[in-house]
């Protein structure tokens, strides 16, 4: 319901934005010439246009719109698919989907192979008598094959059986079109069908029992057709003449095999035997006897199309790029509906996983947990701080009492051994990923910016550190990953170090560019205003490099984010990349898409924050 409303809204937005955009283009003609950058300003209606068309494509090709507007379509198409499935063995024998009759195809194939055999025989160095015997055998084989197509040797009763099948299919076609078919619904069966989980509500995808009147027609027809197909499949052109001939051929092969010595002699006999076993199927019939079935199949086809009516249109428009296949226990979506998860399902998956009790692999996506302050103190404050306090640690006296001093209290504080209140701390897959990026980025800035400035100011530093940075920087971060993760472990340390490497190189280069780009006259001015070297770095070079440094941070965040996700896929037990990797192994398309979208949104968010920070902190950029 929600999806349907949203879809209609999206269509309205799309149409509005195009109409509005056309109107605005008219003013554009008067106020700017082509190439004027002003023409790119504004234009939020085109953002609406882009977003809505993107969403419409997603809704349509994932079949989400189809499901919203026609919730029963899949169930009905499932019944049609059932009938097609039952029909298929018969249908495939006739030139409806194929170009030739099944019998024609068999004849063509087998005759070709027999031809090859006789050619092979000519090239073999067999004794003359052996060759003649085998040659006679091959010619018998060919004759037996060809005789199947003749009405003269046809098995008795075949004509009648084919006519029966044709008549039943024709009757089925008439039934499908009639109003009474398939009679009143069985109450219990209908109740059972209606009790099935809906489309996409369970792992069985599409419910298999017919829920609607139209569905029931095809379901019943499929049942009848299954019977007809079974009878049809039993028909064989195994008249006594032909079976007798095959018997003879078998016998001759056995006799010849008994006396065969050479390997190629034995080989050709076994090839002949293989073909004889295939002919043994007797699936070639005289064309006249099967014509009736072909005609009634066309009638049935017509009847199915008529009866489907609007369903065929829904299939083409609302479920594009694929169809629905019937299986034994459930029907499944084949095509874009399968690998492109529906937006509503993706959102539902996200909401389901966002529940902290649910999470993914026992770890929430983004939540908080209460953590005692003492633990954090233990982590942050080094234990040796207590050693710096003058005095001795407490020791026990003769009564066994221990006199704790101030030094002990400090030690207990540093090791987190005290009662404390708890504070909420963020936790979860998404948070872990963000934290890793921020930690790597922070370390990269902390060390990269000073080094970059140093390299921009000193010939020594530039020469000394340049090879190091320039050699490791061009290596794709992921190429480092296996090594770094081996050294530092697959937990946070390794990933943070990897991200640090990425951010460090970018920060060094941008800080260096910023420092070398400082106008000489500004440095001169600062010198003659009495600034010391340290003040020049702090007050002139650093602020002057700020645009480059902030741009570097913006680039670093993007690259770190990309590297992190890949690194999490390689190893680890938490993080958004880990979630996607596990989902990939389970072919869980909804979760894969959900993680992709989460990553996209977070990446966008990081970038927006950086853009905001850049606008705020360096408004003079490009105006100096």
């Amino acid at each position, binding site marked *: 319901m929600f999806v349907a409303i949203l879809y209609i809204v999206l269509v309205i937005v799309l149409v509005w934005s195009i109409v509005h955009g056309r109107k605005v283009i008219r003013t554009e003609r008067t106020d700017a010439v082509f190439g004027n950058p002003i023409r790119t300003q504004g234009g939020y209606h085109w953002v609406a246009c882009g977003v809505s068309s993107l969403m419409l494509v997603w809704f349509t090709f994932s079949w989400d719109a189809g499901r919203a507007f026609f919730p029963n379509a899949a169930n009905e198409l499932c019944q049609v698919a059932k009938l097609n499935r039952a029909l298929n063995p018969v249908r495939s024998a006739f030139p409806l989907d194929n170009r030739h009759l099944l019998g024609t195809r068999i004849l063509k194939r087998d005759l070709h192979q027999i031809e090859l055999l006789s050619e092979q025989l000519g090239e073999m160095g067999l004794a003359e008598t052996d060759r003649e015997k085998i040659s006679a055998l091959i010619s018998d084989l060919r004759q037996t094959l060809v005789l199947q197509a003749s009405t003269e040797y046809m098995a008795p009763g075949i004509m009648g059986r084919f006519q029966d099948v044709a008549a039943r299919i024709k009757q089925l076609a008439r039934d499908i079109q009639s109003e009474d078919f398939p009679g009143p619904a069985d109450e219990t069966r209908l109740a059972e069908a209606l009790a099935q989980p809906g489309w996409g509500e369970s792992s069985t995808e599409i419910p298999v029992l017919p829920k609607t009147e139209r569905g029931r027609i095809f379901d019943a027809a499929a049942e009848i057709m299954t019977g007809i197909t079974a009878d049809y499949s039993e028909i064989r052109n195994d008249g006594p003449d032909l079976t007798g001939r095959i018997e003879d051929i078998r016998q001759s092969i056995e006799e010849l095999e008994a006396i065969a010595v050479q390997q190629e002699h034995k080989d050709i006999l076994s090839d002949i035997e293989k073909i004889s076993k295939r002919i043994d199927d007797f699936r070639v019939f005289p064309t006249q006897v099967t014509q009736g079935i072909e005609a009634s199949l066309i009638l049935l086809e017509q009847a199915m199309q008529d009866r489907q009516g609007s369903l065929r249109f829904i299939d083409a428009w609302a479920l594009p790029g694929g169809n629905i296949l019937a299986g034994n226990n459930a029907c499944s979506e084949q095509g874009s509906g399968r690998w492109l998860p529906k937006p509503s399902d993706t959102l539902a998956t996200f909401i389901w996983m966002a529940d902290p009790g649910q999470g993914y692999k026992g770890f929430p996506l983004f939540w908080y947990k209460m953590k005692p302050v003492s633990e954090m103190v233990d982590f942050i404050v080094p234990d040796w701080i207590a050693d710096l306090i003058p005095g001795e640690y407490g020791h026990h006296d003769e009564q066994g009492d221990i006199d704790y001093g101030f030094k002990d209290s400090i030690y207990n504080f540093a090791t987190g051994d005290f009662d404390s209140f708890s504070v909420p701390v963020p936790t979860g897959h998404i948070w872990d990923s963000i934290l890793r990026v921020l930690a790597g980025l922070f370390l990269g800035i902390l060390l990269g910016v000073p080094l970059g400035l140093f390299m921009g100011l000193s010939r020594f530093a530039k020469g000394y550190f340049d090879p190091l940075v320039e050699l490791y920087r061009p290596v794709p971060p992921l190429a480092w990953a296996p090594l770094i993760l081996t050294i530092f472990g697959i937990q946070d340390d390794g990933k943070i170090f990897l991200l640090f490497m990425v951010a460090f190189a970018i920060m060094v280069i941008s800080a260096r560019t910023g420092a070398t780009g400082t106008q000489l006259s500004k440095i001169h001015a600062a010198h003659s205003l009495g600034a010391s070297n340290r003040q020049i770095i702090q007050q002139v070079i650093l602020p*002057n490099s700020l645009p480059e440094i902030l741009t570097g941070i913006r680039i670093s965040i993007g690259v770190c984010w990309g590297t992190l996700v890949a690194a999490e896929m390689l190893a680890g037990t938490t993080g958004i990349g880990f979630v996607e990797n596990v989902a990939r192994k389970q072919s869980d398309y909804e979760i894969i898409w959900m993680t992709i979208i989460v990553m996209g949104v977070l990446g966008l968010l990081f970038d927006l924050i950086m853009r905001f920070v850049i606008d705020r902190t360096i*408004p003079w950029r490009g105006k100096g």
Partner: protein
Amino acid sequence: MSDLVTDNLNMVFDLPDGSSVHALKDVTFTLRKGEILSVLGPSGCGKTTLLNIVAGFLHPTGGSIKLGGSVIEKPGVDRGMVFQQGALFEWLTVADNVNFGLRMKNADKADTKQKVEEWLDIVGLQGFGETPTYQLSGGMQQRVALARCLINDPDLILMDEPLGALDALTREKMQSLVLKIWKETGKTIMIITHSVEEALLLGERLFVMAPRPGRLHKQYRLPFAEMGLHGDPREIKNEEDFVQTREEILAMIWNMEEEIMGKVEAA
């Protein structure tokens, strides 16, 4: 006794390809306290090199240079500088630019604030203290640069084509401002310029330099700066004396340029 005394200044730059350029040759002059000097010359005559040596950004390869009796070895607050583009710190406000020198010395804050107000008043920028400098026009930026330099109370003010990037009208106003400041503060000022008129108008003394090697070609002592303090600069520019000297110097520079072109073509 804060005169600027140079004795046989020589500056030779060694180029990476092994050759060398004689940028200054035997430059000897004395600039007395309170004098205003303009230096004129075709491009490549070493004006800026001379200024950089006085400022302490370059060390001469020969000769000596002293300000107030002590040798100039490095940049210092006794020599304030004003650059062509202002060279303002665009991340700071006008006030923060002006008080930069005092902040570097950790001067008293209230005192600093008062001084900034005074100097903004003098250069005609009252009320612009909190304006970001990147929003100012070119003329206003130069006023800030002047104030920033003067607030440090330097003995000598060095100006490297300070008015070169300004439009004609602003330029005239700024010339008057420079003269006003010269009069009111009694500072020694050294101005490097491309404009002959400006050099004549502002320079109590005027050096014309010649290129290859850069040297002092001719020295003048002129009355126009003194006149400019009282009279209208535009009238001064029309005086016979002014016009005559202007034509003389222009011809001189013209000949130098011709000579350089000749040398280049001959080579």
